[in-house]
């Protein structure tokens, strides 16, 4: 059984179809890079998989638990870094992580141990007692990451985890993801195509709410199964380190009306 099962997920906001039927399965050990231009539906898909948005159609399951009909077990098994890493600015990083631990049923020594481990992995030690609103963008992002991995979840969903980080911080986060990869099913959305070769075992390209390419990375080469606009299937072989051409050929950035 795949740990993340996404089945025909769709979302319309009024007249706008943001996501139009996304189907994906992610297994343990996979790091799925979720690629697509701005407005393609990456974040909306993730918001539905994590139970924040109710899908217009389709379903999502985390380790077999339907996110809509059985949300609490699904969310217990899930670590989620929302877009922009929102956190309560008035709390200290430690207070915030303690709150997250508490809602996940960890308290006392167990909460302390979980926080320590997450803080060590995300290198937050220096800023632990500072209010989150006073932290730099990079540290804020890492507080969000620490929150997501706090309970060592089997499923991790991260919306642009390296956005706003400097090259050193990006490297640390990528190392962290690589390290966690074997025991988890991970979805990472990103605009940064080089990230795919650095951390992912699989890449999925989404365009205008649909999956247009899906391929496993093998020795730096991706064998994409593609779906064209007319519904016909195709195949593209790309170098994982040089996805620019494939990305541009398959996707369209929506022009604001």
């Amino acid at each position, binding site marked *: 059984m795949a740990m993340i099962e996404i089945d025909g997920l769709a979302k319309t906001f009024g007249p706008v179809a943001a996501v139009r039927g996304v189907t994906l399965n992610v297994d343990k050990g996979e790091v799925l890079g979720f690629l697509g231009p701005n407005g393609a539906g990456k974040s909306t898909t993730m918001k539905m998989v994590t139970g*924040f948005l*109710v899908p217009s159609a389709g379903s999502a399951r985390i380790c077999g638990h339907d996110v809509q009909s059985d949300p609490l077990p699904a969310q217990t098994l899930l670590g989620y870094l929302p877009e922009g890493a929102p956190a309560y600015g008035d709390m200290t990083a430690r207070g915030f992580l303690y*709150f997250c631990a508490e*809602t996940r*049923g960890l308290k006392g020594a167990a909460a302390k141990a979980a926080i320590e481990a997450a803080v060590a992995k995300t290198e937050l030690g220096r800023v632990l007692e500072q*209010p989150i609103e006073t932290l730099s963008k990079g540290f804020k992002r890492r507080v969000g990451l620490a929150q997501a991995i706090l309970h060592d979840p089997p499923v991790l969903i991260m919306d642009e985890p390296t956005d706003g980080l400097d090259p050193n911080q990006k490297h640390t986060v990528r190392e962290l993801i690589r390290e966690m990869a074997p025991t988890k099913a991970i979805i990472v959305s990103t605009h940064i195509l080089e990230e795919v070769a650095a951390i992912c075992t699989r890449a999925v390209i989404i365009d205008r709410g649909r999956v247009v390419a899906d391929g496993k990375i093998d020795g730096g080469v991706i064998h994409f199964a593609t779906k064209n606009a007319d519904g016909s299937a195709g195949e593209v072989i790309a170098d994982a380190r040089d996805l620019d051409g494939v990305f541009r050929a398959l996707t369209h950035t929506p022009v604001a009306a």
Partner: protein
Amino acid sequence: MFKGTLAVFRRELAAYFATPLATVFIVIFLFAMGAFTFYLGGFYDSGQANLGIFFSFHPWLYLFLIPAIAMRLWAEERKSGTIELLLTLPIPLSAAVIGKFLAAWVFAGIALTLTFPMWMTVNFLGNPDNGVILASYLGSWLMAGGYLAIGSAVSAGTSNQVIAFVVSVVISFLFTIAGAPLVIDALSSILPLELLNTVSSFSFLTHFNAIMAGVIDLRDLVFFGTLTIFFLYVTAVLVDLRKAG
């Protein structure tokens, strides 16, 4: 559900005190209470050793001050995006709604408790009926819960705190004055008596005045309790509706 409620409650209550909001609110609350009681209410001139004048201003102060506490409850989460985090943590929505409400209610209770010098003053000056005073304090706190629940529901419907404040004040005002002579006299010529009684029975003033008289009637408690639960339910529905986009 309990662990979630407790975690949210603690976080929210700490949030009031982590910002200047708590200090500003409590200072203004106490100052306004005193000013109204002694100047507008003519507490000394009344020559009565009771806190009736003090309590009679509570509905009117709550009308503006409680929406100021309640407006941030959900609107702020939506604005800052933390609602996405809160609603993807493994806690039921009811735990978040109740935890937030309880924190705001306890905070209002702390502010109310800090008016205790009024109670000391009146005990120093005479021999008031302390049972009536205690009942009035409890009634006032219950009423604050009602105003808060209204504010919570309104806050859940918007990401704009100013809108949340203004709309809460208006709805709270309607509930406050439903039984006042202003409304009853105006409606008495057009509404049949039964309907008039129904309108008047939704009035915070009517129920609070009954409690202030020192008679704790189950009906008044049930009124504030039911109203609070109803508006918390509306809060949950509104938060849930937004999830459906």
